[in-house]
């Protein structure tokens, strides 16, 4: 599904050029569950941003189902994110003014889904993540774990091909982390391709493939673990 070849990203900070990705080549197949680990500044977040279409590489190739994402315009990238990608963030990024249901509806509004259809799907997704009884709650009325589940429901709204999670359990306690990880495992079993960026060995453990980054390069790429 994803083909990345010699991907480079250089940030220019004043006079200095800081390489974040120094030539990454990898491919990810449909249905995989990948964890990307590595120390801060190793380039793993940069990779995720590029894969998710939030950023463009300085050079190199990025093909998603054959599409040349590396050379997309801003609008093409927006459409790409909307149709193909679901994001889950460490800090949830829910809009505080909106209810859980409205937060989940949001991506479908940009996709132009009819109001009734999108309400039904949002309700179904909240049901799916175990929040069927809290649809009308605002984010502030929900616990951290519940907020992250709303965010996961939102990421699934437009039926993405790839779910990108950036430290999804970083702001959660052990118990709720477990719930979120179980939800991820379940989604993966249903066929969703998942890529999560994490420091947490426990989170990485869950994945079927662990890619380790250091100084903008892949230093290890191991498959294994227990397919649940």
């Amino acid at each position, binding site marked *: 599904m994803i083909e990345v070849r010699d991907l480079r990203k250089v940030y220019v900070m004043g006079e200095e050029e800081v390489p974040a990705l120094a030539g990454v080549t990898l491919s990810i197949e449909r249905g995989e569950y990948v964890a990307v680990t590595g120390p801060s500044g190793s380039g793993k977040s940069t990779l995720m941003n590029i894969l998710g279409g939030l950023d463009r590489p300085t050079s190199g190739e990025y093909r998603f189902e054959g599409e040349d994402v590396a050379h997309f315009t*801003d609008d093409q990238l927006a459409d790409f994110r909307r149709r193909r990608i679901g994001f889950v963030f460490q800090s949830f990024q829910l809009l505080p003014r909106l209810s859980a249901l409205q937060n989940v509806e949001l991506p479908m509004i940009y*996709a132009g889904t009819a109001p009734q259809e999108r309400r039904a799907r949002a309700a179904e997704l909240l049901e799916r993540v175990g929040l069927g009884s809290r649809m009308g709650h605002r984010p502030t009325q929900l616990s951290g774990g519940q907020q992250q589940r709303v965010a996961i429901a939102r990421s699934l709204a437009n039926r993405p091909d790839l779910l990108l999670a950036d430290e999804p359990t970083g702001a959660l306690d052990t118990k709720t982390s477990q719930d979120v990880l179980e939800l991820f495992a379940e989604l993966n079993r249903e066929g969703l391709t998942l890529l999560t960026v994490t420091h947490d060995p426990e989170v990485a453990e869950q994945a079927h493939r662990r890619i380790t980054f250091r100084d903008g390069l892949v230093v290890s790429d191991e498959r294994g673990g227990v397919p649940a």
Partner: protein
Amino acid sequence: MRALELVRFAMGAIVAHPLRSGLTSLGVVIGVAAVVMMTSIGLGAQKQVTGAISGLGSNLIIVMPNFQRGPVSAGAGAGFSLRDADAEAIEKQVDNVAAVAPSVTSRAQLAADGANWNSRIEGVTPAYMTARDLALASGRMFDEREARQGRKVAVVGATVARELWGEADPVGRRVRIRTVPFEVIGVLESKGQAGFGQDQDDLVLAPLQAVRSRITGRRFGGDTVQTIYVKAIDADTLDRVQEEVTALLRERHRIRQGEDDDFSIQNMASILATMQATVQAFTMFLAAVAAVSLVVGGVGIMNIMLVAVTERTREIGLRMAIGARRSDVLIQFALESVALSLVGGLIGLAIGAGGAVLVAKLANWPAAVPAWAGPLALGFSVTVGLVFGAYPSWRASRLDPIEALRRE
């Protein structure tokens, strides 16, 4: 992406901070209210001026003497150059004339049945009624014969009638004008206030000859007249009649080419046009001053929109991450700014129109909120919202989603 949804986003953000939104709109409220009020009051004043001047008589030309030709002009009405014969000549030789009415004027003390009043006495001919568009409430106007003979009869205005006789009918009673007794034969229909603080009903009409010989005394002795009113048959012939009257009087007064007239001639239409232009210029000036407050209101909107963009940076980043295009973000914030301004504009329109009606009522003017005040207010407020929302919205749309999501 449907426009309707973007409108809902914008309205949601406005409703989320009612106090802030209200205060932000206030600038536009004041600006639009001021513009609407100023233009409406100006328009009312214009109507008032028009009414007042056309109340003096329509299609009217006024000829007054200038002081005799010389190095110093003493101004209109100061001389004695016009005579009865001039009025007669105009009537006979100028075409398209409906009425020619020579007159002399003086102020005089009136006494009747124990009451006293000071009023304006005009010595006129019957044609005066036509020239000045006057009508009788009761009694009759003196006729040509009475006028020629200088009979001591008088037609009084409504104010004079009220002051001297109260509710009673003055017809048939006597009034002393500077001790000279006159018989009242008619009462004029009320014309109301002229708009310059002058009461058009406060006058007494008497035959020209009688006034000249009995009231004004030596000053207007003989056949001198103070004013000749010439009424053209319609507005189209007004200018031509004025030209012909001018030419005729110059000829009769033997004024050579290049020399100044020894009389002044004005027509009401041009006076009206001048007054209207003055009022209009004044209105425009006031409206322009009011428009400045609209700009101030716009700056307020821009300020709060910039704050909103900063506050909601993470929201913008999130929207972009889930697939909003830059244009979606741009439109959302522009709509928010326009909505703030538009709400202010609508409230301002209501206040401005209400204020104009109130002022008109207090000043006894015809209220005149023009039909275009609505579109004007809406147009102004939408424009202000767009112009001053443009930069904040553009800034929102240019945010880098990664940076925006990271912002605390």
